[in-house]
């Protein structure tokens, strides 16, 4: 049975489950041989609310001399490996088979007022919100100033409903900021991106998180992928065939986390496939490493996302 996304609407309010196969390939080719490298990957999805992981495989070439998997503080699966023989090229392929459940991101039944939630988050022990309290604080890549806070307030001051205000903010960022791959780089700060009014998914996600945290709300950073081929009749979303990132807002004990994509101005639905979860980009950066030698390395990344009904 093919449960594709024909039922999805733009707000992702309701849809049936979709099964995906994702292939993420990262290749380094070095101008001089590398004698030794050690790397860390955060590319393996996990089963979590709304996501069911069936299988995931990490293939590394050349074959690592040692490889370990551990779970990090945020519950992400981390692969650490070392290659100790001389090599000119490093290829990492991660292939995952997973289902995005239809229940994902259904509109929460209760929609608390955001001000009540902020008050609860200020006393996380009493409110029983210890697990999410830390997502209200600045993190290594995310802080804010008064300007960012006033920008956020424009969505929240007149709207009591948390979900509506947050989606409004998502859509304003989508409208007010230009998608521009040349405007920013991997180290661009939130404040800079806010000044530039431009950036890529990482900047938009971090900006919305900064906005939400500036109000005292809890927000996190999600790395992931987008469906490559649009459903019939839909246009292809920005960021397909690439890694993607968005933000997630805590809506209270009942509603849990709600994912929002400011790059596309929408609630995250069936098209979004999450991998890792953290406070900002630094917590989930998909691959990092240290190599001895290597000269001037050339990097190529490709992501292939396909619906995978044949496996049913």
């Amino acid at each position, binding site marked *: 049975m093919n449960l594709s996304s024909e039922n999805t609407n733009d707000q992702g309010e309701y849809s049936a489950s979709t099964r995906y196969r994702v292939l993420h390939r990262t290749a380094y080719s070095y101008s001089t041989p590398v004698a030794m490298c050690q790397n860390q990957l955060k590319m393996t999805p996990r089963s979590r609310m709304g996501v069911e992981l069936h299988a995931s495989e990490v293939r590394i070439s050349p074959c690592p001399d040692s490889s370990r998997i551990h779970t990090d503080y945020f519950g992400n699966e981390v692969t650490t490996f070392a290659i100790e023989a001389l090599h000119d090229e490093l290829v990492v392929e991660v292939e995952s088979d997973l289902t995005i459940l239809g229940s994902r991101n259904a509109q929460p039944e209760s929609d608390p007022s955001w001000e009540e939630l902020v008050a609860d988050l200020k006393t996380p022990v009493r409110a029983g919100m210890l697990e999410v309290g830390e997502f209200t604080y600045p993190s290594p890549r995310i802080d804010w100033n008064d300007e960012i806070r006033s920008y956020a307030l424009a969505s929240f001051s007149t709207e009591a409903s948390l979900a509506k205000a947050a989606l409004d903010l998502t859509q304003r960022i989508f409208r007010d900021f230009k998608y521009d791959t040349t405007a920013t780089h991997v180290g661009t700060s939130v404040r800079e991106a806010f000044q530039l009014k431009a950036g890529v*998914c990482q900047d938009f996600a971090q900006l919305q998180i900064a906005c939400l945290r500036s109000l005292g709300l809890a927000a996190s950073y999600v790395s992931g992928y987008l469906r490559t081929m649009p459903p019939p009749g839909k246009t292809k979303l920005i960021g397909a065939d690439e890694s993607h990132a968005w933000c997630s807002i805590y809506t209270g004990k009942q509603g849990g986390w709600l994912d929002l994509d400011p790059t596309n101005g929408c609630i995250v639905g069936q098209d979004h496939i999450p991998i890792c979860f953290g406070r900002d980009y630094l917590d989930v950066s998909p691959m990092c490493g240290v190599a001895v030698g290597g000269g001037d390395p050339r990097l190529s990344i490709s992501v292939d996302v396909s619906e995978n009904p044949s496996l049913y």
Partner: protein
Amino acid sequence: MDAKSPLSLTTYPISSEQFDACLSNTQDIRPGWAPLNEWVKSVGASGLSACEKQLQRLIRDNGATFTVEEDQEQQVRPWKLAPLPMVIDADAWTPLERGLQQRTRLLEAVLSDLLGDQTLIRDGVVPPDLLWANPAFARDFVGLPVATDSQDRRQRLEITGTDLTRTSRGQWLVVGDRTRAPSGLGYLLENRITTSQVHSQLVRQCNVRRVARFFLKLRSRLQDLAPRMRGNPRIALLTPGPKSYRYFEDAYLARYLGFTLVQGSDLAVRGERLNLKTLGGLLPVEVLWRHVSDRKCDPLELDPTSREGVTGLLRTVRDQSVSIVNAIGSELAQMPALAPFLPAAAKHFWGEELDLPNAETYWCGNEQKLSHVLANFEEFLLRDAFVVDRESPIDVRALPLDQQAYWRARLSENPQSFVAQRREQGWTTPVWEGEQVTTWNVSLRTFQVAAGEDVDVLPGGLARVGPTQDCLLGSPVSGHLTVDCWIADDCPTSGAITLLPAPDAAIEPQRGGDDLPSRVAEHLFWLGRYLERSEAIARLLRTTLKCLVGEEFELGQSSLPRLTAALASIGQLPPDCVIEGLGEAYPSLESMLPASVFSKDQPGSLQQALRSMVYNASAVRDRLSIDGYRILRQTAEELNSPPPVSGGVLGPALERLNQLITDLLAFSGLTSESMTRTYGWRFLQLGRRIERTHQTVELLSASLVPVSEPERLICEAVLESTDSVMTYHARYMNLVRPQLVLDLLVCDDTNPRSILYQLKRIDDAISRLPRAPAPASAGPDEDQESSRLLIEHLGQVNLDALDAAMNGRREALSQLLQFIGSGLPDLSDAIAAQFFFHTNPSQALTGASGDEFVI
């Protein structure tokens, strides 16, 4: 005080507002101080001054006040050692000791809770902000396995320090905790060893508790944490390096405890283990006592810019193949914001009161505390709530009003990032200063080593003193003097303990030296080269200067052009100094040559060679004997002393050169007589021999390749600057012939100054080096091939042909010297490629480049 009244510890003035370690409010001497007072009375002012000088000398001889750069203001050893120790009698010490033991256990419990179940936060004992707003709380700290000892006890804090002060009534107060890698232990040890030498009798009379037992405990504790080979594990002390203020004490501690002193570049994670990179290959490290900060331990998972740590270290921690002391993440337990919550934490865990109170400290993240602090602003010192750094705290009272307003605003804006600590009066101890006994403020740091519930407090501590309380507030190296702190018992302490005999476990005799880190080998190699270069330049300069002042001045002149050419060819003089005729050049030479002895600007000059020599020596100071290091330190001191005011005077320059040559020879003698013939010695030798060959080649090329009569004086100058005058005259009396000089300096393999002798020693040293698998870049035995080739070539030399001259040049000699000269760099490079390959730079791969990761 009347100058004539006898010196005593009971007569100096004390403040009624401060506790004094020696005198009570009624000027009565406190328990434990009586023997010291008797001593002061008996030796008087001259005795104290003499004692002060003796301490200075001993400390200097340990190489503690060593600086490489003259403009480097910060001394490597931060303080002088005071002649008067500070005494605390056992009755006053025991309750403090108990309090410190409890506090150490508490910090361990708190840290383990914060990185584990967080009951302190769940039960509202500690506000969650202390973690969540804390930029030092790297999430990677959570979930790391904890080192386990032989009794299966898990523990993060093995070695801790506590900073203490006393109230006017003598109550001890804690002003700060050090749980990451407390500094000062090495200086404390040096203080004790030094004062014990000077005050051996007093130490007995006062029944001073020995500190050696503490270090024994520390060593056995670290051994007990080894995941394998607990009997005799390899323990490494990871130091931030020679530029750090800790380097001296790290080297001192490593030598005393028998640990291997390493820097990040000496270590490598390979095959799922932490290893020491040595000439003999990789040797596993079982326990790493790290003195680098938590975030700098692993560039892969923590701070990617760190050069002090080891890539992949966290991986080995997760595999539990190495124990890190203290555990990565232990930095959290020393955050200043934690202190106000410790009394409640003690109740929370054990229902106990905290025995040892904190100095009054508030975390400003609490609204009530913040308003209290702002209402009494001038009484407080402001500190970062989360991180202990080397900055002084903000002393509000000392600020101008506009600055006070600024800090008020900062505090109100971001209160959770600050703690406010009430400014304490501090306490005092007597010091000998300015020819009299006076009292100075004191700051005491104690040290604890913990094994589960069992906590040992070092009897004593590192005491720093200064004339005001303010000057002690800053970094761990602030203060004017350091004072040895004695814990005095009523009766003699039992049994002497030393770290020298090994514990009961049998240790196999070792001969090899395979475990020489590659970095150390490299520094020894370059130490050898610069040592030899310095000596060669100094000798040639001395010979040249003598030509200017000698009896045979007229004759001496004829040698000058060739000697200056030689000096220019080795870099001591600028190349344009090479002059054909003497004439007008003489006056400038007379001033230029002596000036060049002191000049620091000319690249390749004597001063630069000496500087590089000292640099390489200081990088391997734990490998050199105290005596050897003392000689090099003296050389460095002379290097840093200013040149004589009148630059053109020959006398002082000659004097300086004479002293320098004596020092360098002393060091050479020491290495040949005292260093074991291990790999370290061979690298030093290789460096020396290669450099000496190079210097001789340059000298002969400049002096004896061109022929100009009369040659007697130039031959004598060459013999003198190669230290071969005696040998030559013993063989040939006063018959000076270039051919015989060449034989002695090139082909005579019994002359330790000849080129052939150097090459044979090089060949010999290379053949005894380990044959570790080298990377592809260095062919096998490439180095030995180079040396063999050179020796073979020398074996075929015909002396007559060498001496033969045509058109004023000895062409055959020139060609031979060129051949050798051009072979040397290859030889040096081959050795570097074979043994120093670890210095290859590494780079970070972000998985993201340029506009990567877009969308």
